[in-house]
């Protein structure tokens, strides 16, 4: 297997609040091959967005990466000085956010915003920057791109705005794009368009994509591999089809059962009992224990990931056993 583009090992990001230490991300490890799409799934507060921000070194105080390693194209990002990190951001790893209404600056033209993103990493004449911006907008499917460069964000529809944000993220052809719920704020029909567009772009450009979402359906449509997060840890990881068909972690099972598309019509939707624990007072051992139908006394000890590099889960009582465990 070739060297992964992104290798995250034992990443922990904590927030040191007055109320106590919030372990938003704890011991997260995964790797990403060139051109691969990884879906990062979890409920709100599971640490999936903080994981995304950690990758770009954009965790706001009082949070910071306390340990672990992030290797992007062989280069360690954790502990890199700010200016070197800034140089990596946007050029080798970029990010698209949830709400395009909030991410673009309302008082600057699209051209200005794109030019700033270009000039952040290379020298370019205004004319060259404009040409490249127009090309980038055309690539993400914005019609009449050259003329629309002079428009302001409010003159675009939600879907078009998100395309602009994607175009900005793609300007320098980064190795990795972190997409933090980029379709959540959009209409369903627009969501599908953006999903298809993203899938096409990353395969064309050979960019790897981390798609963060709470929506299993969206993630499964796009990603070949999927990682499920709960309370700051990855609880299950594997090829999308396998995880969806044979989930090993009871939490993944619960998520799948609560999908409307999977339920029998007319029957009540299954729910996961209880709610996400407060990150300040996580239960001892497996954090899912209080909500888990399979919990036993053994679960008061934090389970270690079992399985192999392709398919892992963090559970004492997995629903499906790996061949090794079955023996």
């Amino acid at each position, binding site marked *: 297997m070739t060297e992964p583009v992104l290798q995250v090992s034992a990443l922990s990001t904590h927030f040191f609040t007055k109320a106590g230490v919030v372990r938003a991300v704890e011991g997260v490890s995964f790797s990403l091959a060139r051109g691969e799409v990884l879906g990062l799934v979890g409920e709100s507060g599971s640490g999936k967005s903080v994981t995304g921000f950690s990758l770009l070194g954009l965790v706001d105080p009082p949070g910071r990466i306390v340990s672990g390693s992030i290797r992007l194209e062989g280069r360690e990002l954790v502990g890199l000085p700010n200016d070197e990190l800034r140089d990596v951001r946007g050029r080798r790893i970029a990010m698209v*956010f949830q709400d395009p209404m909030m*991410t673009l600056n309302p008082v600057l033209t699209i051209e200005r915003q794109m030019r700033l*993103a270009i000039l952040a990493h290379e020298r370019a004449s205004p004319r060259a920057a404009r040409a490249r911006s127009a090309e980038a907008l055309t690539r993400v499917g914005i019609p009449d791109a050259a003329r629309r460069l002079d428009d302001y964000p*409010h003159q675009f529809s939600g879907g078009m705005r998100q395309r602009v944000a994607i175009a900005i993220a793609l300007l320098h052809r980064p190795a990795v794009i972190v997409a933090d719920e980029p379709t959540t704020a959009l209409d369903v029909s627009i969501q599908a368009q953006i999903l298809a567009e993203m899938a096409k772009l990353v395969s064309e450009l050979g960019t790897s994509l981390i798609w963060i979402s709470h929506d299993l359906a969206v993630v499964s449509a796009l990603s070949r591999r999927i990682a499920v997060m709960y309370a700051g840890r990855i609880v299950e990881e594997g090829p999308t089809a396998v995880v969806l068909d044979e989930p090993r972690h009871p939490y993944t099972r619960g998520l799948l059962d609560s999908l409307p598309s999977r339920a029998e019509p007319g029957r009540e939707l299954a729910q996961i009992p209880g709610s996400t624990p407060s990150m300040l007072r996580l239960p001892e051992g497996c954090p899912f224990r209080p909500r888990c139908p399979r919990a036993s006394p053994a679960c008061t000890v934090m389970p270690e990931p079992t399985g192999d590099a392709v398919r892992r889960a963090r559970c004492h009582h997995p629903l499906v056993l790996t061949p090794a465990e079955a023996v």
Partner: protein
Amino acid sequence: MLGFIIQRVLQAMLVMAVMSALVFIGVYAVGNPIDVLISPDATQDIRTETIARYGLDRPLYEQYFTFVGNILSGDMGRSFVFGMPVLQLIMQRLPATLELTLVAVIGATLAGVPLGIYAGYRPQSPISKTIMAVSILGFSVPTFWIGLILILFFAVHLGWLPAGSRGATRSFLGVEWSVLTLDGWKHLVLPATNLALFKLAMMIRLSRAGTREIMLTDTIKFARAAGLSEWTILRQHVLKLISIPIVTVFGLEFGSTLAFAVVTETIFSWPGVGKLIIDSIAQLDRPVMVAYLILIAFLFVTINLTVDLVYALLDPRLRRGRAA
């Protein structure tokens, strides 16, 4: 955009009409100028003759319409006290106040906005905390006291700067300006500093609040994710976003300082309009009071109109009538 301007100009005219009536009636109700104008031992004939000469025997509405008609033809009346046309009297004094105010407000903005942005960008740093502490002083210490301290320290104790009055002037566009001479600046520095301190504090607070709010938004996160340097983010994104409230306050402050720089002008014996209006009120010089208030209302309306237009330039969302 044109429709927007026309609408704003019409609004401004309406405000002026209402304002002129209010001022006229308000001032009419204050005291009787005849008592000041005519000595108490004058004969009844002289009294009647004087009252008729100034048109003070006419009904209120008639006086008002005469007054409005005169204003529209550029005649704002004669000062009872100085015996010269009011407009000329005010225009003689206005440049002094105008340059004092402009220097103070522009100086406060140029210094206050960067300081405020810094304090908002690094709220925890000791420098920021110092900036904020100084701004509290600027808000709470009375202007006249700071003025006296400035004179005591820089003029009396150190002897670096003159204690008051306006310096040498040079003529530009037919008006005498002291900002064009070195001596003029020497005289200007202390009163302008005195006048600027409160505005400086306000600009610092405003920029700081705006910056703090904006730094937490996704716009800034997205700009950082694109690899923009912090300096570029502050200069291009933050400055542009906080400029809208700053323009508003700049306009309002400019107007109110122009109208009410009285305290500073008095302390530094600055020959501006603030001093003039105080004297006119004391002497019941009605035409000066009315003309001054009308002029100030006019200035405010003009400034607000300009601010509105600048808004439209700064915030594309306000520009109407342009196809989306």
